């Protein structure tokens, strides 16, 4: 995937919001890729966790918004505990999800869960999933 960076495309407001919601200093990351290497969901992502950080700090909101990466994240925190820079990527993933959810754009509808699955799922799955995927 090639990305064109120009002052016109940068969304400084987006960078500011991500920093504010996540409490993370995006400049800490030195792009070593430990997050991607340890991510059990990386195979389901179109943009790797490492690249998400790079795109976020460049303010490339459109690339991130069109990607399924943050929705494939299971918040398992394997990235967080393995980061040599003490950067908490799970909080950045959450911040990016919330920037979409808070515009009333849900990732899924509760009614999309089949009735059979609804009966089978443990409550913690329903509560946690709907917290992550709906606003």
């Amino acid at each position, binding site marked *: 995937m090639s990305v064109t960076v120009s002052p016109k495309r940068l969304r400084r407001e987006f960078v500011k919001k991500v920093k504010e919601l996540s409490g993370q200093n995006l400049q800490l990351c030195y792009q070593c890729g430990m997050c991607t290497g340890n991510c059990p969901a990386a195979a389901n992502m179109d943009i790797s966790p490492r690249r998400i950080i790079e795109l976020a700090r460049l303010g490339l909101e459109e690339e991130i918004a069109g990607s399924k990466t943050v929705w494939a994240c299971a918040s398992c925190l394997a990235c967080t505990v393995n980061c040599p820079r003490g950067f908490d990527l799970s909080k950045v993933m959450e911040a990016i999800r919330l920037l979409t959810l808070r515009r009333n754009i849900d990732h899924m509808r509760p009614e999309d869960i089949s009735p059979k699955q609804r009966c089978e799922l443990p409550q913690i799955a329903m509560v946690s*999933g709907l917290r992550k995927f709906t606003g």
Partner: protein
Amino acid sequence: MSLAYYPGCTLKTKARNLEEPAVASMEALGFNLDELPRWNCCGAVYSLADDDLIHQVAPVRNLIRAKEQGKNELVTLCAFCFNTLKRANLLMKDNAEKRDTLNSFMNEEIDYSGEVKVVHLLEVLRDDIGWGALAEKVKLPLRELKAAPYYGCTLLRPREVAIDNVEDPTILREFLKALGASPVDFPESTRCCGSYQVISSPDDIAEYARPILNSALRHGAEALVLTCPLCDYNLGRAQKELMKKQSGFKEMPLFYFTQLLALALGLGPQVCHFELNHGSPESLLKEKDLLSQSRSVQPIGG
């Protein structure tokens, strides 16, 4: 001795086979798990956004219930609840500004500042009872049961709430040894099972589980030992799918650690609710002669 105890929603319905053997076992060990009055859902996941305080209200209310009881410790059993409550507690302890906002928002409640310590039942077994003392109480050693500890995520991550070493946890291994079982270590024991992804991408769960289950089998496990109801659901579901997809895939029984505890303490299979388990645990237990209550009691050596 009475311990303040927070069960959480799942343990009262889908995971009764996690809770009931725990309550019975702790009683046999001289502890009463005293359920908090008026507990509410903890919210299942800790809110990761810095500006989101409203989702801290639910876990903090439960901590306030414990403080009202005059307790300085709150025992949890569900791995999700443990993580959410412990992280919310750290927030109340360490962040004065957010603590003040939350306390003033809940002005009908007493003020709270992280006084209650949130612990997991495994920590009580390790730190308050001790593996040696637990081994002495074992009436039915789980001899020859090759069980692989599977930790999942929320008991170990993030670092500040971990009940054990994040990279190389041993707490379940030591627990199983105390019960007389043969623990089987495998490198994927802390790899995520897919968690809540099951509600939006159920078809992906088998691929999350495949490396975990294959690795445990390769290392000689006959069963997995779990602490989390969502791991249980995802791995149980994935095994059924992998039996169809992967030729020669062998389904393993999935146990909660509390079921093995109750069994080893001689409390019998009834309290364990094996009918709620995945992977037909009873045939393995029969094979190991662990279901017959009349089997002679042997002390654990060493």
